[in-house]
Structure formats: structure tokens, C-alpha cells
């Protein structure tokens, strides 16, 4: 394989692994703040019980996110030097603001949030929880600003092949940013809702029926049920925005080759890149036209419009975009079904969590990581959908890649993949291990065990 493809796979592997953890921490921080505020307000121990369990998962996810994030910032230089050389004047300040306003905030206050409950006044602990949640949100904001700018660039001019910023507010509030940011934050909240619901259902099933599990499960199921319709609506708006600015991506998502009116919504097909057509197509007549133009006979642009006169293909590969889009939508619909059914069962005759029959609980356990699946599928849709561009209309991916020998990239790729596979297994294993441990009534070990000899003296007053 050549360096370009290997570098792309390596970056994709890294960023796929990385995004799993911010997807959890972005929303989990706010959920923890919610637990903490509920505790402050009601003084009921069950909220603190939920907080104590989930703050551990937060710490674990945060560490995974930090270390895989550091990898990303280095890969810009090791594999994609052309990116910063061309658009560094725009990407640079955005990344700098992310590090300065977000990374430090979350990293510093995390210590107080995790280990400070008995060391600092309660208000400071609550504030630390807020600042960590706010920090993760800020970090998501800046990185999505940059990512969106790569999809819908504006507010710059090219001088000697290098982008120079002309209007920062146009850069920050570029056309796809509000949609992408909202879509991602909601995705994060849904991921966390299903994770909390799944792990709580697991604890409930194996007999850990504490009050803390009960409130966490209810919060998560109702949260998911409320947010999923909003997410579907926002997703639709995001799609319309993409149609306006990146029509080739939408054409690939729909698997639509020819520009036409009254285009069907394709449910299943095998796109054939060589023949430039679909095989085994099953579709609903006129529905794609209706979704994209809100008119049953609206005109929808096809992929064949994005082939230059010389035959150069200027649209992404169709199959990956087409399929990942369907995986995302399918998972979203499943989330709708599961969360609404579970909410109905809980609310029916006010039976609470007891109203959930075993199959429903198993269903929730099975959906624990559905958010990850949908988020990854969504990112693949939008990122592969931007190809062959790295920055839409400004530079192609090929132009940015470093001239590192292919075997070198291959060896680093294999090393990363091995580490990531082990860590992912360990991560999921530890979450369920902690859940089992809690359910058996064993408290989770503190970060360090009590020293054997009483060598610890009280903290001297300073």
C-alpha cells in the first residue's frame, strides 16, 4: 500500500478511537453536574451514589481521551504537514484556543473534581464539576469550528497558495458549524444516556437494585427519549445544510448517480463505482426528493455531475458513505424505538423501574454502546463524504500527506492498532467489572489502598 492510503487509515484509526471518549465525556460531565446539583438540592444520598459511580467512568474515559488526543496533535506534523502549511493561519488559532480555553480548564479541575470532595468546600467541588463539563464543551466547540471550516470554508483569502484569515467571525460561524456542533453535542448526550441506561440495567439485572441505580436508569432513559426526536430533527437540518454546500456528499449518501426529479429514497443498494450505478436497489419513490427539497418532485443532484470533463472524479467513494449513513440512521431509529418503549413501560401505571420486564432490560444492556456506533457512522459519512478534499475546494488530502516511507507508516499503524484494541477491551471490561463489583455491594477500591503501616500523617497546616 502507498503512504497516502496508510496515512489515511492511521489517521482514521486514531481519530475513531479518540472520538469514542470525548463523545462520552462531553455529556457525562453535564450529567454529573446534574447529579451533583440534585444532591445539593435534595441532600438525598442516592444522587451522590450515582455521582460516585459515574465519576469513575468519567475519569477513565477522560484519560483515554487525553492520551489519544495528544496522538492526534502530533500526527498533524508527522503525517500531514501540508495541512498546517496551507491552512495553518486559520487552523492554528482555532487549535490554540482549544488548548488554552478548554484543555487546561478540564485537566486542572479534573483533579479537584475526582479527589477533592473531602478536601475542598462543597461549592468548590460543584464548581469544579461545572468547569470540567464546561471545558469539555468548549473543547468540542473549537474543534468542531475547525472541522466545519474544513467542510464549509469562508472568511479567508489565498495568497501564494497559503490561506490567510480575513474575517474571524465568518471563520468561526461558518455555515455548517451550528448544525455540526448541535448534532455532535446531542450525539454525545444520547451516547451517554444509552451507556448509563445499559450499565444501570445490567446492575439491576444482576441484583444491584439500589436507589442510585434507579435514579441513574430513569434519568438516562427519559433523557434519551426526549433527545432522540430532537436529534432526528437536527440531523435533517444538517443534511439540508450539507446539500447546499457539499452536494456531492449528499449524492453519495443517497446513492444517487443521475440528477433527476422525483428521486426515490434508496433503502438498500450495492453501489458500483466502476459501472456508476446501483445493484439490487430497493427504494421508496419520490421520498428522497421530498426529504431534501420538501417537494415530492424536487430536483436532486446526482454523482455524475461531479466528474470533470477529463474524467477526474471529484466526489467521494460512494459505498462507504452510503453505508455508514444508513448505519447511523438505522441506529438512530432503533434508539427511538428502545427509549420510547422503555419510557412507556416505566411511566405505565407509575410502576417505575420495576415496570421494565427482563427483555427490555436486556435490550437496554445491548444498546449500551449504540451511541458509539451511530457517532462513528455519522463521522464516517461526513468525513469520507468530503473526499477527495481535505479542505473543501481549497486543498485535497493528497496534497497534505507527508513523504514518510510507507513501511514506517505501516509499522506505526500496526503498533497503534494493537494498543487501541487492548485498551478498548480493557475499557469495556472495566466498566462492567465496576458495575458487578458495585452490585455485589463491594465498594470500589479507592485509588490507593490504605498503607500497611500507619505512615500517613495528617496534612500539615500551611
Amino acid at each position, binding site marked *: 500500500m502507498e503512504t497516502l492510503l496508510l496515512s489515511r487509515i492511521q489517521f482514521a484509526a486514531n481519530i475513531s478511537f479518540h472520538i469514542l471518549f470525548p463523545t462520552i465525556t462531553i455529556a457525562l460531565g453535564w450529567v454529573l453536574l446534574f447529579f451533583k446539583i440534585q444532591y445539593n438540592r435534595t441532600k438525598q444520598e442516592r444522587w451522590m451514589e450515582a455521582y*460516585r459511580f459515574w*465519576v469513575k467512568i468519567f475519569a*477513565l474515559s*477522560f484519560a*483515554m481521551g*487525553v*492520551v489519544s488526543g*495528544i496522538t492526534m*496533535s*502530533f500526527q*498533524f*506534523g*508527522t503525517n500531514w*504537514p*501540508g495541512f*498546517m*502549511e496551507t491552512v*495553518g*493561519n486559520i*487552523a*492554528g*488559532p482555532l*487549535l*490554540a484556543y482549544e*488548548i*488554552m480555553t478548554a*484543555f*487546561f*480548564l478540564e485537566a*486542572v479541575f*479534573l*483533579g479537584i473534581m475526582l*479527589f*477533592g*470532595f*473531602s478536601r475542598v468546600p462543597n461549592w468548590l467541588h460543584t464548581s469544579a464539576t461545572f468547569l470540567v463539563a464546561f471545558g469539555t464543551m468548549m473543547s468540542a466547540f473549537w474543534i468542531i469550528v475547525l472541522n466545519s471550516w474544513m467542510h464549509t470554508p469562508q472568511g479567508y483569502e489565498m495568497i501564494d497558495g497559503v490561506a*490567510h484569515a480575513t474575517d*474571524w467571525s465568518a471563520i468561526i460561524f461558518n455555515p455548517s458549524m451550528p448544525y455540526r456542533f448541535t448534532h455532535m453535542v446531542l450525539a454525545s448526550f444520547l451516547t451517554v444516556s444509552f451507556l448509563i441506561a445499559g450499565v444501570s440495567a445490567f446492575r439491576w439485572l444482576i441484583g444491584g437494585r439500589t436507589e442510585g441505580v434507579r435514579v441513574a436508569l430513569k434519568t438516562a432513559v427519559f433523557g434519551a427519549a426526549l433527545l432522540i426526536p430532537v436529534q432526528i430533527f437536527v440531523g435533517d437540518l444538517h443534511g439540508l445544510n450539507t446539500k447546499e454546500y457539499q452536494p456531492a456528499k449528499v449524492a453519495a449518501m443517497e446513492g444517487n448517480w443521475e440528477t433527476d426529479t422525483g428521486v426515490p429514497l434508496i433503502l438498500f443498494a450495492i453501489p458500483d463505482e466502476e459501472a456508476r450505478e446501483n445493484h439490487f436497489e430497493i427504494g421508496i419513490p419520490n421520498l428522497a426528493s421530498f426529504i431534501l427539497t420538501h417537494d415530492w418532485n424536487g430536483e436532486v443532484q446526482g454523482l455524475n455531475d461531479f466528474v470533470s470533463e477529463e474524467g477526474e472524479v471529484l466526489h467521494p467513494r460512494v459505498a462507504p458513505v452510503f453505508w455508514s449513513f444508513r448505519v447511523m440512521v438505522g441506529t438512530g431509529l432503533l434508539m427511538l424505538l428502545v427509549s420510547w418503549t422503555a419510557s412507556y413501560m416505566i411511566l405505565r401505571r407509575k410502576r417505575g423501574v420495576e415496570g421494565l420486564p427482563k427483555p427490555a432490560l436486556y435490550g437496554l444492556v445491548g444498546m449500551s454502546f449504540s451511541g458509539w456506533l451511530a457517532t462513528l457512522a455519522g463521522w464516517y459519512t461526513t468525513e469520507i463524504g468530503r473526499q477527495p478534499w481535505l479542505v473543501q475546494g481549497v486543498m485535497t488530502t493528497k496534497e497534505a500527506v*507527508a513523504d514518510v516511507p510507507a513501511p*514506517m507508516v505501516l509499522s*506505526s499503524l500496526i*503498533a*497503534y492498532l494493537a*494498543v487501541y484494541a487492548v*485498551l478498548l477491551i*480493557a475499557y469495556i*471490561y*472495566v466498566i462492567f*467489572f465496576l458495575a458487578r463489583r458495585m452490585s455485589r455491594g463491594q465498594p470500589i*477500591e*479507592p*485509588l*490507593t*489502598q490504605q*498503607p500497611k*503501616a500507619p*505512615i*500517613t500523617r495528617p*496534612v*500539615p497546616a500551611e
Partner: protein
Amino acid sequence: MYYFGNPEVWLPFVFAALMGASILIYVVLDGFDLGVGVLFPFAEDDEKDRMIASIGPFWDANETWLVLAIGLMLVAFPAAHGEILTALYLPVTIMLIGLILRGVAFEFRAKAPAPHKRAWNSAFFAGSLMTSLSQGFMLGMYVMGLEWTWCNTGFAVLTAVFLTVGYSFIGATWVIHKTDEHLQRKAVGWAQGGIWGLVLGIGAISLATPFVSARIFDKWFSWPEALYLSPLPILSGLLVVWLWSMLRRMPFENDNASWLPFAAATALWVLAFGGMAYSFYPYVVPDQLTIYEAASAPESLFIILIGTCIVLPTIMGYTILAYTVFRGKATELRYD
């Protein structure tokens, strides 16, 4: 932007200074927690927990300084960022995997079932070692001008060992400050055993740099510069002697001045770093690319600078808050 003269001159200088400061803060702060990881095999199991507790609340923020340093290089000197990191592709990869291992081992060793804890302890040690060695290797390669020759690689292997021992030294001084009794006495021993790494490391780099580059040689050994610079090596020498004699008498009565070795070690880093910065200025890629050639457009640098002026003091403030909250001897880390 034009208040201080030509922005294409002062902005790159300011950013080089900021980047230098971040690297310096990083090597001191992450230096001590990497060093604690490197010292892991010398500690008993209960001591390991205590050592982890002494760095637990800080390591995340310490590593963020690396992100800031590399981020500033990325945003302010994009050309240099690409050139340096592609030249150091292999050690960078090893360092990143090391950072991943030790970062997650922190969490996993406390949360995984007891039988797995030993494995995560090893991962923590291995990750810390990989990170320290590869950073030392990169330092050596950088000093030698980023050329992969046998001679340069050999030198880089030496600096890799020296920096790792140097980190373990500053890690030991941190443990002296944060613990007491048996472990503290042990840490004094580690510090005594590790100080040579620092001395040889600083010595090797100070000797090598002037001979690799005639430009650097002239900067140091011409009159009257040599006179102005003489306090640097003299102070460093005095610090080493002072540290050595102090460590032989530690721990002091009532645990007085347990922070002194760490402070002295930090001062030593600062001096060594100052010397290096003087040698390489104005180059960001040694003898190839100056900070002025590699810098981003002034408009972009300026907008980052505005943010930096507001945010950096804030970061300092809450970093101090965190170190204050977790001051004193390291006690058991609890989530509640």
C-alpha cells in the same frame, strides 16, 4: 500589532519565548511524574500506591503543557512542526504509545480487578520509560541537527539514557517532598543515585552543541560573551554540589525544607534550558530554519497572542489552586 515595531519580528520572538516556556514547564512538571513512573520497579507495592497518589491529581494538567508546547509550534511555526516531526517520526510514535500506556494505566490500575493490577503497574512503568527514553532521544537528535547518522544516533541513545535518569532524579526529589518516613528515605537514596544522569546529560549536551555547529561555538566562546555567560555553568556547578551535600544529610529534622531538592533540581533545569535556548536562537530547526522564516502570518499570531495574554495567567492561577488544594504529604486518594 504595530505598537512594538515590525510584527514580523517581535511576534515570532514572543511565540518562540512562549513555546520555550511551555517546554520548560513541561519538562519540569511532567519530568517529575514521568520520573516517578521510571522509579516504579524500585518500590514495594504499597509504596507504589503512595507514589501514584503523589502525582495523581496533577499528571493530567502536566501533560497538557506538552500539548500546549507542540500546539504553539504547530500554530506559530507550522513549517518547523512538519519538518521536525517527520524527521523524528519513529521516536515520536514510541513516545505517543508510551504516553497512552502510562496515562490509561493510571486509571486502570486503580479500577481493574486486583490480579490485573500488577500488569497495569508494569504498563505504567513501561509507558513512563518509553516516553522518557524517546524524549531524550529526540533531544539528542535535535541537538545534532536532526540527521540520522550512526554517530548522531549513538549520541541520541546516550542522551536518552541521561534524560531518563534525569527525570528519575527530579521524580525522586518530588517523592522526597510528598512522602515521609521509609519511602522518603528511600527516595533520598534514589535522588543520590540519579543525580549523575542530570550532570552527564547537561554536560554531554553542553559539550556537544558547540562542536556540532560553528555558529553556536562562536556564540559561547568569543569575548566578551564568554564572560557574560560564565555564571550559567558556574551556577549549575554550585547547584549540583549543593544538592549533593544536601541529599547526604536528608531528611532534615521535622521534615524541614523537604521541598528544597525539588526546587534546586528545577533551578538546574531552568539553567540548562536557558543555555540551550541561547545556543539555538534564532533557529527553530537547528541551522536550517529560523523562527522568523517558519512563523505563521502576523495576523494569525496576533489573534492567538490576545487569547494567550488573557488565558495564560488564568491557567497559572488555577494550576496554583490545584497544587494548593493537594499540598502537603500525599495521602490516600479517594473519590469521596
